């Protein structure tokens, strides 16, 4: 598959009014609202790093390139793309940008929108559009790169992406901190870590997750410290003042990302960091079978994957448990990533119903052939 082939497919779809389901490596197809499409446009074979200048710490890849391949290429120069969305490394860079997927590293290194320098896409009329560029700073023209990030394929088929890389840290260590004591004590440990540390990642894990990872029977904080040795040592000292950390293999992050696997429902609840910290201990301690809960206190995001063990577990009843996060001043945002098909219309029919979003969709995909329905309409 090449950009020309994508253009040809889009043109054909326009002519025949055949809506397209756009796919990368199809690792995350259950996400989003059901798509009304008769034909699949897969970018899987459109893969490969097309330009990599280690000295510039920039890399350009075709949309179908897997994150694993990008990491492999970058590693050759002791560099990496600090982007670790939940799911597997076989997910493609195109889909990662299209869905704005991020993971535990994002509170430090940024979301996909922050790591993206430019992209190429084919809009719903078959025009090849270039956005941004290959340099690390650029304000030429309106920001189509940010517009396409998180647009779930509904504004254009992303065909190529340029991202910013970082040097691999000389030291990169992971520690597990069991959360013990009263809920108040736990909250104060979490808050102390939030204030005192600048970790690469800080995730709080609920009991079900902890068990699945074989890390015991208590909620834990997973702390990833990175940088030069001096930084990591200093941070470790700071951490040891707060609690008793135990070092574990950093493979745990990969396992964590893959854990939710085929969970039928995944939601993200986001709020202010302090609010999240305030309720974290109670939520994590609550044993809800089959519900995998992780919290990134710095980003203020709780991720809930449900229905893994018990088929019947309904996302809505799980959400109700988070009432105290949802109520009161300074509200919460709930982002539904994945739900059983029949729930969408009830829970979140659309996130693009406002006039601006509709106007943009109409301009970029006038025939409504790109992933129609996935964000609602």
């Amino acid at each position, binding site marked *: 598959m090449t950009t020309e082939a994508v253009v040809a497919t889009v043109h054909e779809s326009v002519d025949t009014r055949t809506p397209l389901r756009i796919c990368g490596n199809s690792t995350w197809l259950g996400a989003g609202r059901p798509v009304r499409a008769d034909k699949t446009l897969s970018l899987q074979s459109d893969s490969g790093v097309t330009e990599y200048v280690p*000295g*510039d710490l920039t890399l350009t890849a075709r949309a179908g390139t897997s994150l694993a391949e990008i990491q492999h290429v970058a590693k050759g120069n002791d560099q990496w793309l600090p982007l670790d969305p939940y799911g597997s490394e076989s997910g493609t860079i195109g889909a990662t940008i299209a869905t704005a997927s991020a993971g535990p590293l994002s509170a430090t290194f940024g979301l996909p929108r922050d790591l993206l320098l430019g992209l190429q896409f084919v809009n719903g009329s078959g025009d090849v559009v*270039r956005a941004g560029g290959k340099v690390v700073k*650029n304000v030429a023209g309106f920001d189509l790169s940010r*517009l396409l990030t998180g647009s779930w394929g509904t504004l254009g088929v992303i065909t190529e992406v340029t991202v910013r890389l970082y040097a691999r840290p000389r030291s990169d260590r992971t520690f597990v901190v069991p959360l013990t004591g009263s809920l108040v004590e736990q909250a104060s440990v979490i808050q102390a870590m939030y204030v005192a540390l600048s970790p690469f990642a800080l995730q709080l894990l609920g009991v079900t997750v902890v068990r699945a990872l074989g890390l015991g029977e208590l909620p834990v904080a997973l702390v990833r410290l990175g940088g030069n040795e001096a930084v990591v040592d200093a941070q470790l000292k700071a951490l040891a003042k707060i609690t008793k950390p135990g070092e574990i293999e950093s493979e745990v992050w990969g396992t964590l990302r893959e854990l939710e696997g085929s969970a039928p429902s995944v939601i993200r609840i986001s709020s202010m960091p302090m609010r999240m910290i305030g309720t974290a201990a109670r939520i994590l301690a609550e044993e809800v079978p089959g519900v995998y809960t992780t919290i990134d206190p710095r980003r203020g995001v709780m991720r809930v994957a449900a229905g893994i063990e018990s088929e019947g577990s309904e996302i809505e009843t799980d959400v109700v448990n988070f009432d105290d996060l949802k109520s009161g001043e300074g509200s919460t945002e709930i982002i539904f990533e994945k739900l059983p098909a029949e729930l969408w219309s009830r829970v979140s029919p659309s996130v693009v119903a406002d006039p601006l979003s509709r106007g943009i969709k109409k301009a970029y995909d006038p025939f409504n052939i790109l992933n129609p329905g996935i964000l609602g309409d």
Partner: protein
Amino acid sequence: MTQPSASTQRASVSARLADIVGERHVLSRPSELLVYNSDGLPGYRRQPSIAVFPGSREETIAVVRLLAEEELPFVPRGAGTGLSGGALADDIIVVGLHRLKKILSLDIDNRRATVEPGVVNLRLNRHVAPLGLLYAPDPSSEAACTIGGNIAENAGGPHCLKYGVTLNHVHAMTVVLPSGEVVELGSRTGERDGYDLRGAFIGSEGCFGVALDVTVRLTPKPQTVRTLLADFTSVDDAARVTSAIIASGIVPAALEFMDGPTIRVVEDSIYAAGYPRDAEAVLLIELDGIEAGVDADLEVVRRICLDGGARNVKVARDDIERAKLWQGRKKAFGAMGRLAPHLIVQDAVIPRTKLPEILQTIHAISEKHGVLVCNVFHAGDGNLHPNIAYSADNAEESKRVHKAMTEIMNACIDAGGSITGEHGVGLDKMGYMESIFPASSLNAMCELRSVFDPGRRSNPGKVVPVHSCKEWHGVKSARETSAATVPPPLAAEPSRPVAQ
């Protein structure tokens, strides 16, 4: 049918605007409007018809609604420090926002603040500094420019190398669209899905409406800051050292470059920072973070500098020394006012590995045309500012300067770079948009703009040349009237001291 004369119409609009904001805050006499006929970029003058200065959010909305009702075009304006002619209004209405300067809320624990658009960047930083926080984007114009202007330009600054530009520090904003409708973009309290309209608005250069308030992310102050000055007898060595530091993987908080002509002009000015006058280049490097880690990185950076030919690497001993080293850098544009009556401040980006090569090219171009280029720039990002001081009264010199600038810009484009890293396209760079974007990209930008502003009344005639928009292809005169094909004027007028 009789049309009311332009002046009657202006008088009636002024009166209605005065009803909203009070008479004192509407200017319509040409003599009063002189101050608003330029921004930070010398060389362009455009006389607005009226300038109106709302004093509150409600007044701003009312003003925009009135202009919508009357279908009148307008230009939002912050402090007017922009360097691409973005805030200029050509016989249309300026909506000045500097009176909206309230810090609306500050949430220390969650590290965020909500401010009105007229809040000056440095004022926000002074406000949060005692709380151990900072607002990271720090344009050199921080003492004057507004957060609204920063959002509109997606402003950068020396410390954006490590911390990122404005885009990376904004959670949400409220915007009054040119139609008068008020919308909330992004989320103040969390993350939101759907299209990233906040991302689309940032850097929209006043063309998508008026920001009424902005919720920004605050960053904890680093534990330690170390500032180094490395001086070189060769520009080439300094350029190679820059590339080497970036390639080493260390991310300095800032990595700034000043060449010989810049050093000497700064040292001759009241902003003298103690840079060695006989150096051909200095690098101002800042490292910050956790003390132990910073010290380790400092040693690596010092080694790279010395191995790369630095004569000397000086580390600032205290905050006073540090401030002095920075003052020379931050006031360099101002100091250049001494060289000649006029100054072109240029802004372009190149891949960082191409730095040595491009600086040689710039040097060759300046020799060829007999002009003096002063390079002072954000080297770590590859964001160049080749500036030329000259006298616009001299037509022959102006021509040479203009030729040299065009060649420099083209060299940056050929190197795979961008035509602007932080100052925006505005009026000044429109002519280059077609050299870096295909027609389809320009059209997609036009379409996005049309969604926010179907009537194209907010800052018309900026950023994307109007003839690039598909639906305007039929308009014959568009190309002729567009600034895209008109060489930037090098008007004979004294350059103002740059706003500081």
